[in-house]
């Protein structure tokens, strides 16, 4: 496996850094405080091509390979301070657009993908429920077939993008007795009668990415909006999680790199007791740990791209990467905060926001504990 970016990938990475630094960093402190989603940033990202990175050009995307996509995401993560917006883009891409691309009918692809790529549509994903979080397939949301429709009833929680989304990928069971074989995926448009976006959920971090619950009450969905076969929603869900776990982490490679660079600059310039604080071994050790984590994380993420481009299943590798990168990110954010001392604790520096944003990464797309369960199962334990 070659970890060096190709010339084209290097250009994509640098273009993403340049774009994000120029276009995505306005007023982040206020927007984070007030939980403001940036529609302007969303449209700029769409114009840049971010919403259609892996989608073929015939559906309005850029048709990039997965390693190319990871390189772009790494660049966006380096350049952008608004990691809530990047999180929203990832939710849109991996849990909505990509499932349509992989499992959708030709009609569904033609109907939805162009709008999802050009930013006119915002995608969301309704899987978690109040009583089905990590135990996701214990979901209660029910879909009953009635003629040419399925009628959905249930509540979905922790739905990223829900307050601003136009299209939801929703999972429901057609028969709870069938367990995983009963789970089915559906595409639900926002204005469908019976779908209500209810209370918004205020978060600790990623506050510029809006989240809410959705309630489905006798919500009739045409059979044409079923995504994949009846009873095969688990395949759709697991495929989307595999992509998300792999690709959402690429943003964090960029963030960790930028954080390392700014921390090095700080410990060189900040002087205490007559010398740069980096000369104190206890401070330098934190920098070294940040460097080691970044170098250990990067191959894990790019390995997923390498495997998926060869059509190899990457369930275990995605979980290994998700587990290690998210935990490393939190540790490095803690180190960055400590290195910056009292200044890092101040909102204006942005270091505390990055820590708050990072903490979610050990929870969403499957907690650290769930990733360990998946890896253990893949090892036959």
């Amino acid at each position, binding site marked *: 496996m070659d970890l060096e970016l190709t010339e084209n990938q290097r250009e994509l990475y640098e273009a993403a850094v340049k774009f994000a630094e120029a276009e995505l960093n306005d007023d982040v402190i206020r927007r984070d405080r007030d939980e403001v989603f940036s529609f302007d940033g969303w449209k700029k990202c769409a114009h840049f091509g971010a919403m259609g990175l892996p989608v073929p050009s015939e559906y309005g995307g850029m048709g990039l390979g997965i390693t190319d996509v990871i390189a772009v995401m790494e660049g966006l993560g380096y350049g952008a301070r608004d990691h809530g917006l990047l999180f929203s883009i990832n939710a849109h891409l991996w849990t909505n657009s990509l499932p349509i691309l992989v499992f959708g009918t030709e009609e569904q692809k033609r109907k939805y993908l162009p709008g999802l790529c050009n930013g006119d549509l915002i995608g969301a994903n309704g899987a978690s429920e109040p009583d089905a979080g990590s135990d996701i*397939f214990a979901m209660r949301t029910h879909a009953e077939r009635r003629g040419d429709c399925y009628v959905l009833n249930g509540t979905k929680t922790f739905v990223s993008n829900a307050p601003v989304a136009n299209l939801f990928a929703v999972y429901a069971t*057609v*028969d709870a007795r069938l*367990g995983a*074989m*009963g789970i089915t995926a559906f595409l639900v448009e926002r204005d469908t009668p019976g779908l209500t976006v209810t209370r918004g959920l205020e978060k600790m971090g990623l506050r510029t990415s809006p989240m809410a619950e959705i309630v489905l009450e006798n919500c009739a969905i045409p059979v044409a909006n079923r995504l994949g076969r009846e009873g095969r929603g688990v395949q759709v869900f697991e495929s989307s999680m595999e992509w998300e776990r792999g690709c959402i982490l690429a943003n964090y490679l960029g963030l960790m790199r930028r954080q390392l660079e700014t921390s090095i600059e700080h410990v060189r310039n900040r002087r205490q007791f007559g010398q740069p604080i980096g000369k104190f071994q206890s401070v330098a050790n934190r920098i070294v740990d940040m460097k080691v984590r970044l170098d250990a994380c990067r191959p894990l993420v790019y390995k997923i791209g390498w495997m998926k481009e060869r059509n190899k299943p990457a369930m275990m590798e995605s979980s290994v990467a998700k587990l290690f990168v998210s935990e490393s990110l939190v540790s490095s954010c803690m180190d960055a905060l400590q290195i910056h001392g009292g200044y890092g604790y101040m909102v204006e520096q942005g270091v505390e926001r990055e820590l708050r944003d990072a903490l979610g990464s050990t929870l969403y797309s499957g907690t650290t504990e769930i990733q360990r369960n998946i890896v253990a199962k893949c090892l*036959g334990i």
Partner: protein
Amino acid sequence: MDNIKEELRQHILEEFLPGEKPSNLKDDTPLRTSGILDSVATLKLVTFVEEHYGIEVEAHEAGVENFDSIDGIASFVKSKKA
């Protein structure tokens, strides 16, 4: 029939029981009722059976009556292909 059983055994060992001795997975070893396969793993096995043998398995056909042993799955595949 024997060929189907061996293919199933190989796949189950690779996907769900890595490191297990092949001799421990017998034709009548319970797969679901013993906990070797949960419902998500069963779905993965169903997908393999569909793709490998070119058949379609309905949700109600994937219960323990057909998918609890290599014997049962092989018989089911044979009946579907007949």
